[in-house]
Protein backbone atom coordinates (compact mmCIF):
# COMPACT_ATOMS: atom_id res chain seq x y z
CA UNK A 1 0.00 0.00 0.00
CA UNK A 2 1.36 3.40 -0.87
CA UNK A 3 1.83 5.83 1.96
CA UNK A 4 -0.87 8.15 0.68
CA UNK A 5 -3.49 5.41 0.48
CA UNK A 6 -2.65 4.22 3.97
CA UNK A 7 -2.72 7.78 5.21
CA UNK A 8 -6.12 8.36 3.63
CA UNK A 9 -7.57 5.25 5.19
CA UNK A 10 -6.35 6.30 8.62
CA UNK A 11 -7.67 9.83 8.17
CA UNK A 12 -11.08 8.66 7.01
CA UNK A 13 -11.45 6.29 9.93
CA UNK A 14 -10.50 9.04 12.38
CA UNK A 15 -12.30 11.96 10.79
CA UNK A 16 -15.55 10.09 10.27
CA UNK A 17 -15.32 8.21 13.56
CA UNK A 18 -15.61 4.80 11.90
CA UNK A 19 -14.86 3.03 15.16
CA UNK A 20 -15.56 -0.48 13.95
CA UNK A 21 -13.20 -0.25 10.96
CA UNK A 22 -9.45 -0.79 10.73
CA UNK A 23 -7.21 0.15 7.83
CA UNK A 24 -7.20 -3.50 6.79
CA UNK A 25 -10.99 -3.46 6.38
CA UNK A 26 -10.90 -0.87 3.58
CA UNK A 27 -9.72 -2.14 0.21
CA UNK A 28 -8.28 0.39 -2.24
CA UNK A 29 -11.14 -0.12 -4.67
CA UNK A 30 -14.00 -0.47 -2.22
CA UNK A 31 -16.90 1.92 -2.85
CA UNK A 32 -16.75 4.53 -0.12
CA UNK A 33 -20.32 5.74 -0.59
CA UNK A 34 -23.59 3.92 -1.03
CA UNK A 35 -23.31 0.17 -0.62
CA UNK A 36 -19.61 0.03 0.18
CA UNK A 37 -18.48 1.79 3.34
CA UNK A 38 -21.91 3.43 3.53
CA UNK A 39 -20.75 7.03 3.75
CA UNK A 40 -23.26 9.80 3.06
CA UNK A 41 -23.47 13.45 1.98
CA UNK A 42 -22.29 14.75 5.36
CA UNK A 43 -19.22 12.52 5.17
CA UNK A 44 -18.55 13.95 1.71
CA UNK A 45 -18.50 17.44 3.21
CA UNK A 46 -16.12 16.27 5.92
CA UNK A 47 -13.80 14.85 3.25
CA UNK A 48 -13.96 18.10 1.30
CA UNK A 49 -12.64 19.92 4.37
CA UNK A 50 -9.92 17.30 4.78
CA UNK A 51 -8.85 17.84 1.17
CA UNK A 52 -8.49 21.55 1.82
CA UNK A 53 -6.90 21.40 5.25
CA UNK A 54 -4.44 18.55 4.70
CA UNK A 55 -3.75 18.73 0.97
CA UNK A 56 -4.55 22.30 -0.01
CA UNK A 57 -7.16 21.28 -2.59
CA UNK A 58 -10.35 23.36 -2.62
CA UNK A 59 -13.63 22.09 -4.01
CA UNK A 60 -16.22 24.81 -4.34
CA UNK A 61 -19.04 22.61 -5.58
CA UNK A 62 -19.93 19.69 -3.29
CA UNK A 63 -21.13 17.74 -6.33
CA UNK A 64 -17.52 17.44 -7.53
CA UNK A 65 -16.93 15.19 -4.56
CA UNK A 66 -19.08 12.44 -6.04
CA UNK A 67 -16.45 11.43 -8.59
CA UNK A 68 -13.39 12.11 -6.50
CA UNK A 69 -14.49 10.14 -3.44
CA UNK A 70 -15.53 6.99 -5.28
CA UNK A 71 -12.75 4.91 -3.73
CA UNK A 72 -9.45 5.28 -1.91
CA UNK A 73 -7.56 4.55 -5.12
CA UNK A 74 -9.39 7.25 -7.09
CA UNK A 75 -9.05 9.73 -4.24
CA UNK A 76 -5.32 9.03 -3.89
CA UNK A 77 -4.78 9.58 -7.62
CA UNK A 78 -6.68 12.85 -7.52
CA UNK A 79 -4.70 14.12 -4.56
CA UNK A 80 -1.32 13.11 -6.00
CA UNK A 81 -2.27 15.07 -9.05
CA UNK A 82 -3.60 18.22 -7.48
CA UNK A 83 -2.06 18.56 -4.05
CA UNK A 84 -0.62 21.87 -2.94
CA UNK A 85 0.63 20.60 0.44
Amino acid at each position, binding site marked *: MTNLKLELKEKIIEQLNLEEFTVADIADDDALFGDGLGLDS*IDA*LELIVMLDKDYGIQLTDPKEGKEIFKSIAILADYISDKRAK
Partner: protein
Amino acid sequence: MDVAITGMGIISAIGHSMEENKASLLAAKNGIGTLKHIQTKHSELIKVGEISFSNSELTNHLQLPENHNYTRTGLLGLFAAKAALVNANITNIQEYKTGFISATTVGGMDMTELYIKQFATNPEVQKYIHTHHAGDSTQKIADALRITEFVTTISTACSSSANAIMLGARLIKSGKLDRVVVGGTDALSKFTINGFKTLMIQSDELCAPFDAHRKGLNLGEAAAYLVLESKEVVLKEKKEVLAFLSGYGNANDAFHQTASSENGEGAFLAMQKALRTAKLNPEQIDYINAHGTATPNNDLSESIALQRVFGRNIPDFSSTKAFTGHTLAAAGVVEAVFSIVSLQEQTVFPNLNFSAVIPETGLKPVTSVIKKELQHVLSNSFGFGGNCSTLIFSKA
Protein backbone atom coordinates in the same frame (compact mmCIF):
# COMPACT_ATOMS: atom_id res chain seq x y z
CA MET B 1 -63.55 25.09 14.86
CA ASP B 2 -61.14 27.53 13.34
CA VAL B 3 -58.82 29.48 15.59
CA ALA B 4 -58.89 33.25 15.17
CA ILE B 5 -55.80 35.39 14.70
CA THR B 6 -56.42 38.80 16.22
CA GLY B 7 -52.98 40.35 16.27
CA MET B 8 -49.54 40.16 14.67
CA GLY B 9 -46.13 41.67 15.37
CA ILE B 10 -42.98 41.31 13.30
CA ILE B 11 -39.47 42.60 12.89
CA SER B 12 -37.41 41.39 9.94
CA ALA B 13 -34.91 42.48 7.33
CA ILE B 14 -37.74 44.07 5.35
CA GLY B 15 -39.23 46.12 8.15
CA HIS B 16 -39.41 46.95 11.82
CA SER B 17 -43.19 46.83 11.86
CA MET B 18 -46.16 45.14 10.20
CA GLU B 19 -46.66 48.18 7.99
CA GLU B 20 -43.05 48.28 6.86
CA ASN B 21 -43.01 44.53 6.12
CA LYS B 22 -46.23 44.82 4.17
CA ALA B 23 -44.94 47.79 2.18
CA SER B 24 -41.76 45.90 1.26
CA LEU B 25 -43.70 42.85 0.14
CA LEU B 26 -46.04 44.92 -2.01
CA ALA B 27 -43.11 46.80 -3.51
CA ALA B 28 -41.15 43.55 -4.11
CA LYS B 29 -38.33 45.12 -2.12
CA ASN B 30 -35.94 42.62 -0.50
CA GLY B 31 -33.86 43.12 2.65
CA ILE B 32 -30.85 41.01 1.69
CA GLY B 33 -27.43 42.62 1.92
CA THR B 34 -24.00 42.48 3.48
CA LEU B 35 -23.55 41.48 7.11
CA LYS B 36 -22.94 44.44 9.41
CA HIS B 37 -23.38 43.52 13.06
CA ILE B 38 -21.26 40.39 13.31
CA GLN B 39 -17.50 40.01 12.97
CA THR B 40 -16.81 37.05 10.73
CA LYS B 41 -14.27 36.08 8.07
CA HIS B 42 -17.14 35.12 5.82
CA SER B 43 -18.91 38.47 5.56
CA GLU B 44 -17.79 39.04 1.97
CA LEU B 45 -18.76 35.52 0.97
CA ILE B 46 -22.40 35.59 2.03
CA LYS B 47 -25.50 37.72 1.84
CA VAL B 48 -27.90 37.97 4.77
CA GLY B 49 -31.30 39.31 5.77
CA GLU B 50 -30.11 41.34 8.73
CA ILE B 51 -32.28 43.64 10.83
CA SER B 52 -30.82 47.11 10.76
CA PHE B 53 -31.31 47.87 14.47
CA SER B 54 -28.27 47.27 16.65
CA ASN B 55 -28.71 45.74 20.10
CA SER B 56 -28.41 49.14 21.76
CA GLU B 57 -31.04 50.58 19.45
CA LEU B 58 -33.34 47.71 20.36
CA THR B 59 -32.56 48.27 24.05
CA ASN B 60 -33.57 51.92 23.70
CA HIS B 61 -36.77 51.12 21.85
CA LEU B 62 -37.72 48.59 24.50
CA GLN B 63 -36.69 50.92 27.32
CA LEU B 64 -34.72 48.20 29.04
CA PRO B 65 -32.22 49.02 31.80
CA GLU B 66 -28.64 49.32 30.58
CA ASN B 67 -27.35 46.33 32.52
CA HIS B 68 -29.93 43.91 31.12
CA ASN B 69 -28.90 40.47 29.95
CA TYR B 70 -31.23 40.05 26.99
CA THR B 71 -29.56 38.36 24.06
CA ARG B 72 -30.30 39.69 20.58
CA THR B 73 -32.72 36.78 20.18
CA GLY B 74 -34.56 38.04 23.25
CA LEU B 75 -34.50 41.68 22.16
CA LEU B 76 -35.98 40.89 18.74
CA GLY B 77 -38.55 38.61 20.33
CA LEU B 78 -39.71 41.16 22.88
CA PHE B 79 -39.93 43.82 20.18
CA ALA B 80 -42.21 41.69 18.03
CA ALA B 81 -44.27 40.23 20.89
CA LYS B 82 -45.08 43.66 22.27
CA ALA B 83 -46.14 44.79 18.81
CA ALA B 84 -48.42 41.77 18.50
CA LEU B 85 -50.22 42.60 21.73
CA VAL B 86 -50.71 46.20 20.66
CA ASN B 87 -52.02 45.02 17.29
CA ALA B 88 -54.46 42.71 19.09
CA ASN B 89 -55.66 45.57 21.30
CA ILE B 90 -54.79 43.69 24.45
CA THR B 91 -54.39 45.99 27.40
CA ASN B 92 -55.04 43.61 30.25
CA ILE B 93 -53.22 40.37 29.50
CA GLN B 94 -54.45 38.67 32.64
CA GLU B 95 -58.11 39.15 31.84
CA TYR B 96 -58.17 35.81 30.08
CA LYS B 97 -56.21 32.57 30.42
CA THR B 98 -53.29 33.50 28.20
CA GLY B 99 -50.28 31.43 27.25
CA PHE B 100 -47.00 32.18 25.49
CA ILE B 101 -45.29 29.77 23.13
CA SER B 102 -42.06 30.87 21.52
CA ALA B 103 -39.53 29.11 19.34
CA THR B 104 -35.81 29.49 18.74
CA THR B 105 -32.78 27.59 17.54
CA VAL B 106 -30.09 30.18 18.25
CA GLY B 107 -31.29 30.97 21.78
CA GLY B 108 -28.60 32.95 23.53
CA MET B 109 -25.79 31.76 21.25
CA ASP B 110 -25.30 35.26 19.86
CA MET B 111 -23.90 36.23 23.28
CA THR B 112 -22.42 32.87 24.25
CA GLU B 113 -20.20 32.84 21.17
CA LEU B 114 -18.83 36.27 22.08
CA TYR B 115 -18.21 35.66 25.75
CA ILE B 116 -17.79 31.94 26.48
CA LYS B 117 -14.04 32.26 26.86
CA GLN B 118 -14.51 35.05 29.40
CA PHE B 119 -17.16 33.40 31.56
CA ALA B 120 -14.62 32.19 34.09
CA THR B 121 -12.80 35.47 34.52
CA ASN B 122 -14.88 38.49 33.52
CA PRO B 123 -17.73 39.31 35.94
CA GLU B 124 -19.28 41.73 33.46
CA VAL B 125 -20.18 38.98 31.02
CA GLN B 126 -21.14 36.32 33.52
CA LYS B 127 -24.74 37.46 33.21
CA TYR B 128 -24.77 35.64 29.86
CA ILE B 129 -24.01 32.24 31.35
CA HIS B 130 -27.66 31.63 32.13
CA THR B 131 -28.98 33.11 28.90
CA HIS B 132 -27.60 30.47 26.57
CA HIS B 133 -30.49 28.03 26.86
CA ALA B 134 -33.42 28.16 24.45
CA GLY B 135 -35.97 28.97 27.14
CA ASP B 136 -34.27 32.15 28.33
CA SER B 137 -35.68 34.58 25.75
CA THR B 138 -39.11 33.01 26.16
CA GLN B 139 -39.03 33.44 29.93
CA LYS B 140 -37.90 37.06 29.63
CA ILE B 141 -40.59 37.91 27.10
CA ALA B 142 -43.29 36.12 29.12
CA ASP B 143 -42.26 38.04 32.23
CA ALA B 144 -42.25 41.33 30.32
CA LEU B 145 -45.71 40.61 28.93
CA ARG B 146 -46.87 39.39 32.36
CA ILE B 147 -47.86 35.96 31.09
CA THR B 148 -47.21 33.68 34.03
CA GLU B 149 -48.90 30.35 33.54
CA PHE B 150 -48.50 28.31 30.37
CA VAL B 151 -45.17 29.30 28.84
CA THR B 152 -42.94 27.08 26.74
CA THR B 153 -40.35 26.98 23.95
CA ILE B 154 -40.24 24.76 20.91
CA SER B 155 -36.96 24.02 19.15
CA THR B 156 -37.29 21.91 16.03
CA ALA B 157 -34.92 23.78 13.73
CA CYS B 158 -36.56 25.58 10.81
CA SER B 159 -40.10 24.40 11.56
CA SER B 160 -40.01 25.60 15.18
CA SER B 161 -42.38 28.56 15.07
CA ALA B 162 -44.83 26.79 12.78
CA ASN B 163 -45.00 24.11 15.49
CA ALA B 164 -45.47 26.81 18.12
CA ILE B 165 -48.47 28.13 16.19
CA MET B 166 -49.83 24.60 15.93
CA LEU B 167 -49.50 23.95 19.64
CA GLY B 168 -51.20 27.26 20.43
CA ALA B 169 -54.14 26.38 18.23
CA ARG B 170 -54.49 22.97 19.89
CA LEU B 171 -54.44 24.52 23.35
CA ILE B 172 -57.25 26.88 22.40
CA LYS B 173 -59.29 24.14 20.74
CA SER B 174 -58.97 21.95 23.81
CA GLY B 175 -60.18 24.77 26.03
CA LYS B 176 -56.98 24.82 28.07
CA LEU B 177 -56.34 28.44 27.05
CA ASP B 178 -58.55 31.33 25.95
CA ARG B 179 -55.75 33.13 24.24
CA VAL B 180 -52.13 32.45 23.30
CA VAL B 181 -49.25 34.48 21.89
CA VAL B 182 -47.30 32.23 19.53
CA GLY B 183 -44.28 32.63 17.30
CA GLY B 184 -40.52 32.65 17.43
CA THR B 185 -37.25 34.52 17.21
CA ASP B 186 -33.75 33.89 15.93
CA ALA B 187 -30.88 36.33 15.64
CA LEU B 188 -27.99 35.92 13.21
CA SER B 189 -24.92 34.42 14.83
CA LYS B 190 -21.39 33.45 13.93
CA PHE B 191 -22.34 29.91 14.94
CA THR B 192 -25.09 29.52 12.36
CA ILE B 193 -23.20 31.44 9.68
CA ASN B 194 -20.28 29.06 10.05
CA GLY B 195 -22.56 26.09 10.43
CA PHE B 196 -24.34 26.66 7.16
CA LYS B 197 -21.00 27.36 5.54
CA THR B 198 -19.83 23.85 6.40
CA LEU B 199 -22.89 22.48 4.65
CA MET B 200 -21.96 24.42 1.54
CA ILE B 201 -25.56 25.57 1.08
CA GLN B 202 -25.11 29.30 1.55
CA SER B 203 -25.11 31.54 -1.50
CA ASP B 204 -22.84 34.51 -2.05
CA GLU B 205 -25.57 36.09 -4.15
CA LEU B 206 -29.22 36.93 -3.65
CA CYS B 207 -30.84 33.54 -3.20
CA ALA B 208 -33.06 32.22 -5.98
CA PRO B 209 -35.70 29.84 -4.66
CA PHE B 210 -37.00 27.21 -7.09
CA ASP B 211 -34.57 28.37 -9.74
CA ALA B 212 -32.65 25.86 -11.87
CA HIS B 213 -29.35 27.56 -10.98
CA ARG B 214 -30.04 28.15 -7.29
CA LYS B 215 -26.82 28.10 -5.27
CA GLY B 216 -28.08 28.08 -1.73
CA LEU B 217 -29.76 30.11 0.97
CA ASN B 218 -29.26 33.52 2.51
CA LEU B 219 -29.49 33.40 6.28
CA GLY B 220 -31.74 35.91 7.97
CA GLU B 221 -32.89 37.02 11.39
CA ALA B 222 -36.38 37.92 12.53
CA ALA B 223 -38.98 37.67 15.24
CA ALA B 224 -42.74 37.52 14.88
CA TYR B 225 -45.73 36.59 16.99
CA LEU B 226 -49.41 35.96 16.35
CA VAL B 227 -52.16 36.37 18.91
CA LEU B 228 -54.59 33.47 18.72
CA GLU B 229 -57.91 33.78 20.48
CA SER B 230 -60.87 31.50 21.07
CA LYS B 231 -64.24 32.10 19.43
CA GLU B 232 -65.68 33.02 22.83
CA VAL B 233 -63.15 35.76 23.48
CA VAL B 234 -63.50 37.11 19.96
CA LEU B 235 -67.28 37.35 20.37
CA LYS B 236 -67.14 38.75 23.88
CA GLU B 237 -64.56 41.39 23.05
CA LYS B 238 -65.94 42.03 19.58
CA LYS B 239 -62.45 41.50 18.21
CA GLU B 240 -61.48 42.09 14.63
CA VAL B 241 -60.25 38.80 13.19
CA LEU B 242 -57.29 39.13 10.84
CA ALA B 243 -57.54 35.56 9.53
CA PHE B 244 -58.28 32.04 10.75
CA LEU B 245 -55.85 29.19 11.28
CA SER B 246 -57.94 26.50 9.68
CA GLY B 247 -55.48 23.65 9.32
CA TYR B 248 -52.11 22.34 10.43
CA GLY B 249 -50.00 19.22 10.29
CA ASN B 250 -46.60 17.95 11.37
CA ALA B 251 -44.82 14.86 10.09
CA ASN B 252 -41.27 13.53 10.04
CA ASP B 253 -39.30 12.74 6.90
CA ALA B 254 -37.26 10.12 8.83
CA PHE B 255 -34.72 10.06 6.00
CA HIS B 256 -31.59 11.96 7.02
CA GLN B 257 -30.48 14.49 9.63
CA THR B 258 -30.27 17.38 7.17
CA ALA B 259 -31.23 16.32 3.65
CA SER B 260 -34.86 15.87 2.59
CA SER B 261 -35.96 12.62 0.99
CA GLU B 262 -36.13 12.52 -2.78
CA ASN B 263 -39.87 12.18 -2.88
CA GLY B 264 -40.44 14.78 -0.16
CA GLU B 265 -42.28 12.28 2.02
CA GLY B 266 -42.31 14.34 5.23
CA ALA B 267 -43.46 17.44 3.37
CA PHE B 268 -46.13 15.45 1.57
CA LEU B 269 -47.47 13.98 4.81
CA ALA B 270 -47.47 17.35 6.59
CA MET B 271 -49.43 19.01 3.78
CA GLN B 272 -51.91 16.14 3.70
CA LYS B 273 -52.46 16.37 7.46
CA ALA B 274 -53.01 20.13 7.23
CA LEU B 275 -55.57 19.73 4.45
CA ARG B 276 -57.30 17.05 6.48
CA THR B 277 -57.56 19.15 9.65
CA ALA B 278 -58.77 22.07 7.55
CA LYS B 279 -61.27 19.80 5.82
CA LEU B 280 -60.12 21.22 2.50
CA ASN B 281 -59.34 19.63 -0.85
CA PRO B 282 -56.07 20.53 -2.55
CA GLU B 283 -58.00 22.49 -5.22
CA GLN B 284 -59.22 24.87 -2.56
CA ILE B 285 -55.74 26.19 -1.79
CA ASP B 286 -55.27 29.49 -3.61
CA TYR B 287 -51.65 30.22 -2.79
CA ILE B 288 -48.69 28.49 -1.20
CA ASN B 289 -45.99 30.29 0.74
CA ALA B 290 -43.34 27.63 0.22
CA HIS B 291 -40.41 26.79 2.46
CA GLY B 292 -38.26 27.46 -0.61
CA THR B 293 -34.84 28.01 0.96
CA ALA B 294 -33.10 28.01 -2.46
CA THR B 295 -30.93 25.04 -1.55
CA PRO B 296 -30.56 22.43 -4.29
CA ASN B 297 -32.03 19.78 -2.00
CA ASN B 298 -35.04 21.51 -0.43
CA ASP B 299 -36.49 23.14 -3.50
CA LEU B 300 -36.41 19.94 -5.53
CA SER B 301 -37.78 17.84 -2.71
CA GLU B 302 -40.50 20.36 -1.90
CA SER B 303 -41.45 20.65 -5.58
CA ILE B 304 -41.93 16.91 -5.80
CA ALA B 305 -44.01 16.94 -2.63
CA LEU B 306 -46.17 19.72 -4.10
CA GLN B 307 -46.69 17.63 -7.22
CA ARG B 308 -47.69 14.65 -5.10
CA VAL B 309 -50.27 16.67 -3.18
CA PHE B 310 -51.64 18.91 -5.91
CA GLY B 311 -51.13 16.78 -9.01
CA ARG B 312 -51.12 18.87 -12.17
CA ASN B 313 -52.98 21.74 -10.53
CA ILE B 314 -50.34 23.29 -8.33
CA PRO B 315 -51.66 26.58 -6.96
CA ASP B 316 -49.74 29.83 -7.30
CA PHE B 317 -46.70 29.51 -5.07
CA SER B 318 -43.67 31.52 -4.05
CA SER B 319 -40.98 31.57 -1.41
CA THR B 320 -40.59 34.85 0.46
CA LYS B 321 -37.15 33.84 1.74
CA ALA B 322 -35.64 35.96 -1.01
CA PHE B 323 -37.12 38.94 0.84
CA THR B 324 -36.11 38.14 4.42
CA GLY B 325 -33.52 35.42 4.18
CA HIS B 326 -34.03 32.10 5.95
CA THR B 327 -34.86 33.15 9.47
CA LEU B 328 -34.54 29.62 10.87
CA ALA B 329 -36.84 29.17 13.88
CA ALA B 330 -38.72 32.37 13.07
CA ALA B 331 -39.38 31.34 9.46
CA GLY B 332 -42.66 29.59 10.20
CA VAL B 333 -44.25 32.56 11.93
CA VAL B 334 -42.73 35.21 9.63
CA GLU B 335 -44.25 33.39 6.69
CA ALA B 336 -47.49 32.93 8.62
CA VAL B 337 -47.62 36.72 8.95
CA PHE B 338 -46.93 37.08 5.22
CA SER B 339 -49.64 34.51 4.43
CA ILE B 340 -52.13 36.48 6.53
CA VAL B 341 -51.11 39.73 4.85
CA SER B 342 -51.66 37.95 1.55
CA LEU B 343 -55.21 37.16 2.58
CA GLN B 344 -55.83 40.65 3.89
CA GLU B 345 -54.49 42.27 0.72
CA GLN B 346 -55.82 39.57 -1.61
CA THR B 347 -52.35 39.60 -3.12
CA VAL B 348 -49.73 37.00 -3.92
CA PHE B 349 -46.11 37.97 -3.31
CA PRO B 350 -43.36 37.23 -5.80
CA ASN B 351 -40.65 34.60 -5.69
CA LEU B 352 -37.74 36.99 -6.29
CA ASN B 353 -34.60 36.27 -8.34
CA PHE B 354 -36.24 33.53 -10.41
CA SER B 355 -35.23 32.93 -14.01
CA ALA B 356 -35.47 29.25 -15.00
CA VAL B 357 -37.57 26.31 -13.82
CA ILE B 358 -36.03 23.33 -12.07
CA PRO B 359 -35.65 20.87 -14.98
CA GLU B 360 -36.78 17.82 -13.00
CA THR B 361 -40.15 19.36 -12.15
CA GLY B 362 -40.77 22.36 -14.40
CA LEU B 363 -42.67 24.26 -11.68
CA LYS B 364 -42.81 28.03 -12.12
CA PRO B 365 -43.44 30.21 -9.06
CA VAL B 366 -45.20 33.56 -9.10
CA THR B 367 -42.69 36.23 -10.04
CA SER B 368 -44.56 39.49 -9.58
CA VAL B 369 -46.97 41.03 -7.12
CA ILE B 370 -50.37 39.81 -8.24
CA LYS B 371 -53.77 40.74 -6.95
CA LYS B 372 -56.10 37.75 -6.91
CA GLU B 373 -58.96 36.29 -4.96
CA LEU B 374 -57.56 34.33 -2.06
CA GLN B 375 -59.58 32.26 0.38
CA HIS B 376 -57.05 29.74 1.70
CA VAL B 377 -53.26 30.02 1.90
CA LEU B 378 -50.92 27.14 2.75
CA SER B 379 -47.50 27.75 4.33
CA ASN B 380 -44.66 25.20 4.62
CA SER B 381 -41.74 25.07 7.02
CA PHE B 382 -39.27 22.17 6.99
CA GLY B 383 -36.39 21.76 9.40
CA PHE B 384 -33.33 19.68 10.11
CA GLY B 385 -34.15 16.37 11.66
CA GLY B 386 -36.85 15.85 9.05
CA ASN B 387 -39.30 18.03 10.93
CA CYS B 388 -42.00 19.07 8.42
CA SER B 389 -44.83 21.44 9.29
CA THR B 390 -47.65 22.95 7.27
CA LEU B 391 -50.14 25.63 8.27
CA ILE B 392 -53.29 26.68 6.42
CA PHE B 393 -54.75 30.16 6.88
CA SER B 394 -58.20 31.20 5.73
CA LYS B 395 -59.75 34.56 5.01
CA ALA B 396 -61.67 36.16 7.86
